[in-house]
């Protein structure tokens, strides 16, 4: 049982026009086995929340705290956060030329576990996970994200999540840019990992469509750097019917 606790989180970013405050006091607690959908209009700060949790150097945390099972996440370096059990599935996964997927996955797994995975079970695990995500075995020899289609990149993110087995995963617009078939495959992957490992999920999305495939336990509406409203599944249905106008008007 793990708990990610975000309290009064404030983050800013440097822009040519000066310092811009993006997160303005985020409070959120995610436990193992829970799926929290974070929904909000573009520019509301959803991705900043994701990157701030992962420790991207672009964002400066100006106030608040983040703990994972009581440990201070904000004091950890980017790789230490991953080792502590945090995972960020990125909206725009980065190409890394010259590094094959298989080498990347093995290096990451070794770093997270502190020891190299046992070769035989590792090869089997990778193969099974790739099969489940309908990824051709030739994928393993391709360079990380190089020349991948949008759907391939997102499946590759979920593949990593499955193999690295984090305690808490943040999925940043994993559904964006996917057609229905790819969305279904990716969602199945997320559900499978959750069933198998019981991880807690922060599912950041702009659209309600992915919630047809991944059942959220909680829905949070994110507006102007804060959570504006919280509810259950029904809140998502209301958003689908009404859009974000109600929140934007008041913001």
């Amino acid at each position: 049982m793990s708990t990610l606790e975000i309290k009064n989180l404030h983050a800013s970013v440097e822009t040519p026009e000066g310092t811009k405050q993006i997160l303005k006091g985020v409070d959120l607690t995610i436990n193992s086995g829970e799926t929290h959908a974070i929904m909000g209009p573009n520019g509301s700060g959803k991705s900043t929340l994701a990157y701030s949790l992962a420790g991207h150097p672009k964002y400066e945390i100006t106030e608040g705290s983040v703990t994972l099972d009581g440990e201070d996440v904000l004091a950890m370096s980017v790789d230490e956060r991953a080792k502590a059990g945090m995972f960020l599935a990125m909206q725009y996964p980065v190409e890394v030329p010259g590094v094959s997927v298989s080498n990347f996955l093995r290096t990451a797994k070794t770093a997270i576990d502190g020891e190299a995975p046992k070769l035989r079970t590792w090869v089997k695990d990778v193969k099974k996970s790739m099969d489940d995500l309908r990824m051709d075995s030739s994928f393993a020899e391709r360079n990380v994200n190089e020349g991948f289609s949008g759907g391939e990149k997102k499946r590759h993110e979920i593949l990593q999540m499955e193999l690295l087995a984090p305690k808490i995963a943040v999925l940043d617009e994993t559904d964006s840019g996917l057609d229905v078939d790819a969305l279904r495959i990716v969602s199945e992957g997320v559900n499978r990992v959750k069933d198998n490992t019981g991880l807690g999920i922060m599912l950041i999305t702009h659209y309600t469509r992915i919630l047809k495939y991944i059942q959220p336990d909680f829905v949070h509406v994110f507006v102007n750097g804060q959570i504006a409203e919280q509810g259950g599944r029904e809140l998502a249905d209301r958003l689908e019917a009404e859009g974000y106008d109600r929140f934007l008007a008041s913001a």
Partner: protein
Amino acid sequence: MTVTDHSRATADAAHTHGLGTPTPDASRADRPTSFDVDAFAVPTGREEEWRFSPLKDIKPMLADQAADGHLEWDVPALPAGVTLTEVSPADARERSVRAPGDRASAVAAAHASGAMALTIAPNTVVDEPIQITVTGRGEDVRGHLLVEAGASSEATVIIERRGTATYSEFVSVDLADNAGLNLVLLQLWDEDAVHAGEVVARLGRDSRLRGSVVTLGGKAVRLNTSAAFAGEGASVDLFGLYFADSGQHQEHQLFVDHAVPRCTSRVTYKGALAGATARTVWIGDVLIRKEAEETDTYELNRNLVLTDGARADSVPNLEIETGEIAGAGHASATGRFDDEQMFYLRSRGISEEEARKLVVRGFFADLIQEIGVPTVEESLMKAIDLELEHVNEELAEEHA
């Protein structure tokens, strides 16, 4: 005739376009060659072949005067059919496949007082690599070397340069008909060495040359390699690997001259740069003459810039005088290992040092395998890891 001169690079301000450069020779073939030093003016730095070069470092090697230093040769017991002999100046000229192509090289040949000749007798097949180590003792040295592979011979020759020197050289590589030679030149100099070299190869009918150049050490290394086909059906593979730190200039110029039909050439050079003043230059010229029908050629240069400030120039030139070719192409790209890639790898638990290692090893891995000498491949991976340790130390100091 088609001449292209361009480089594609993605790194900001870390490359040079062919546009706006001095007018190149009408054809690469027009450049003079001579054993007479006076045939070459002292370069000013505006010449096409010198415009990227660190003339300040190379200057001592352009003076038409004797140098009295030597490199220390460490030569193993040579297998039957292989000899290393000293050759008189007259013989050295006579046995060179052609005359030097620039002033540094002409000076080297003129003042080397003869040459060392490594000769592989016809039909000799040597299984084990012949490993020669030459070590500089801080002296000023001119060198002339002949490598002669007899008809239908097969051998691997590794020449490793260590220590420090101000060293210029003219190396002639002669492949007789059907000879196979794997020649590996390792520039593992100490950090203050300066090296200007010209390697010229002539390939006889059906001969096969695999020439690998690895430049890791030295303050300034400028190594020009030419391969000219003299008989049909021959092939040349030229591989290069370089890694420049702060304060290092590494320059590799290549010229493949397709003068006869049905020959194949592949040029593959890859370099990594780290440190604000790291500097690399790659110029790859390929000429397909009118006679060279059914030529198949491809040249590639890739550079990986690991830190801000480092600069990689890459200039491929392809000159084609016949339409009857099997294939001709080139590619050049300079990419950065940037903050986003670093963040991505670290967000998967991989440390900063490990991330850099992963990327650099991945970048060089396929190239290192091409060298085809397992002992060299192993020690190269270690040498690259060592380079990376320096980079990590340097970056740690910057952050501190």
